[in-house]
């Protein structure tokens, strides 16, 4: 695959062809390095503070770099899970269930709904598309109370589905998928139809591979939502709560004396998605572009 990187870093060291002066290149390089430093700072900060002993955490001219690294806070968090009523593995299972069902369901339903809206022409499709943009504007807080009443009526409260099901009707994923599917050439879909593909084959074998970057993007976003959801207002039974809720209990009750535990919890919540996404990003980046078309 030949990807021509425009304005990439290699240009910084190569003058001439794109007519950029050496000083200009140096300036760009410095600017990008500064930007990278700003990007990296929060992680560096979090990592260091997770290993700081309490005395260093609470120093007034605050420290950025740890002097006497310690695992105390990690032990303290693991002790917390040893003493809880519900074992750690149960929380982990709950999270795994919510993440798996939630993420795949959302991708499936969002792309199924996006396909006809992007590529078909039927009564009401433009109204539907406008409604989606309207729905995007609405903060979940606005509809929180009536939505709770409906979930309560459906007896979803205090089940993992109270977290999962509302995301199936979420508009962000649909909006994202729809916009990317609009870019897929209609002639590809026509060709599939002529070759006898039915609508499902058409969607899952032709359109979905073409919008792979989009659904991986949706995967990342949806994973974040599911991973971070504590279900605070909808799940009461301790056995059904996800890991983030358990970690939240540590973080929310963190007084000054538990500031280190708080940092460890932040680190856990942050590092697992980071590892996953560094792995996933090759999927976003190394995919085939809209190929398969020969004009």
């Amino acid at each position, binding site marked *: 695959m030949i990807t021509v990187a425009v304005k990439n*870093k290699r240009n910084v060291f190569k003058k001439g062809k794109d007519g950029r002066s050496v000083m200009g290149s140096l300036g760009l390089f410095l600017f990008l390095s500064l930007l990278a430093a700003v*990007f990296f700072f929060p992680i560096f900060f979090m990592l260091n503070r997770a290993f700081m002993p309490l005395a260093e955490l609470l120093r007034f001219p605050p420290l950025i770099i740890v002097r006497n690294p310690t695992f105390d806070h990690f032990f303290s968090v693991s002790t917390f899970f040893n003493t809880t009523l519900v074992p750690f593995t149960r929380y982990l299972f709950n999270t795994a269930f919510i993440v798996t069902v939630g993420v795949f369901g959302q991708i499936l339903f969002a792309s199924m709904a996006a396909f*006809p809206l992007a590529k078909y022409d039927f009564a009401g499709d433009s109204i539907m598309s406008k409604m989606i943009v309207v729905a995007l504007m609405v903060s979940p807080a606005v509809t929180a109370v009536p939505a709770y009443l409906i979930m309560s009526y459906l007896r979803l409260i205090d089940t993992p589905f109270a977290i999962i099901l509302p995301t199936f009707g979420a*508009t962000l994923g649909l909006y994202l998928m729809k916009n990317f599917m609009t870019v897929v050439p209609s002639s590809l879909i026509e060709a599939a139809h002529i070759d006898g593909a039915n609508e499902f084959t058409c969607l899952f074998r032709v359109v979905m591979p073409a919008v792979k970057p989009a659904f991986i993007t949706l995967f990342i*976003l949806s994973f974040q939502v599911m*991973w971070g959801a504590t279900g605070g207002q909808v799940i009461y039974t301790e056995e059904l709560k996800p890991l983030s809720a358990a970690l939240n209990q540590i973080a929310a009750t963190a007084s000054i004396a538990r500031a280190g535990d708080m940092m460890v919890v932040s680190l856990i919540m942050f590092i697992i998605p980071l590892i996953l996404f560094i792995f996933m990003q090759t999927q976003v980046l190394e995919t085939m572009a809209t190929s398969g078309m020969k004009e």
Partner: protein
Amino acid sequence: MAIKHKSKGVSLRQKQGVWGFIFLLPWLLGFLLFFARPMWETISYAFSEVTITFYGIYSTFVGMENFRRALFIDQFFNMYMITLAFPTLVIVVIVVIFSLLAAILINGKYFGRGIVRAVFFIPIIMGANIAVAVTAGGDVVSQAAGMGMNFGGFSQYFLIEALAGTGMPPALISYVLQALSEIFSVLAQSGVPILIFLAGLQSIPTSMYEVAKIEGSTQYETFWKVTLPMISPMILLSTVYTITDLFRRHSMAGPFIPRVATDGVSPVPLLEYIRYVGFGTHNDFGLASAMSLMYIVASLVVIVVVTWVMSKAVFYYD
């Protein structure tokens, strides 16, 4: 879809309608149940005097009373609505340009891009984390993992120390600090737009770049003549997303988010204020519904205008 399927007795439009409906159904069910119906209730609350009791929620129709109170009696609502649009648009422009730049950097192929990718991938997770806090009803962990909450103060402290050490005048220091906190809020906002641009950059056919190369175009020309037109639908998409995100945000800190004081001590963004009206000591759910309704309509007007202006310049390759 110009080709007709033979011998079904139904037109292509009908056939597509049927399939479209089948494909839409699962999502539509979720949408109607968990969004449309609650939204309808909220709208009806906006026109009602709502009393919440132990036995349920009772509402009596009062017409435009809630809207009148929000606009003419409440002391904060007007001020916020007036100061809303402009700062939002400024940050949207910055976020979109910045995310496009970051996406191009991540997407490029060059020596050491592994490190660049890893570093520039951070805001995606940071930004999404803050989005989580908004969608999942504000959880402490992701907010703490997100930006601004726990290290914003520290970084400012260090900067003040460092800058004061150089003998810089205080007025200039506050200006630099302002710029820095803007960098962080831009960073936090740009996660999703970066992902959108990345996916968009990936969907540009490589043959186009090959043609541009063969025709002898410089990289500068290639960017303006190939990349930018091809990515223009994504620019519209991420602009709309960034605007909606900014309007929806109720717990984010940031210099561009205007704030009002509820108890005279702690300033909060408007949506937080609306929550305070609805669930706080006033417990006036009708008034809060009316406010959020006006807020949604205002943000919708901004979206429609921006989309209309931008769609003139968007290029669809098909």
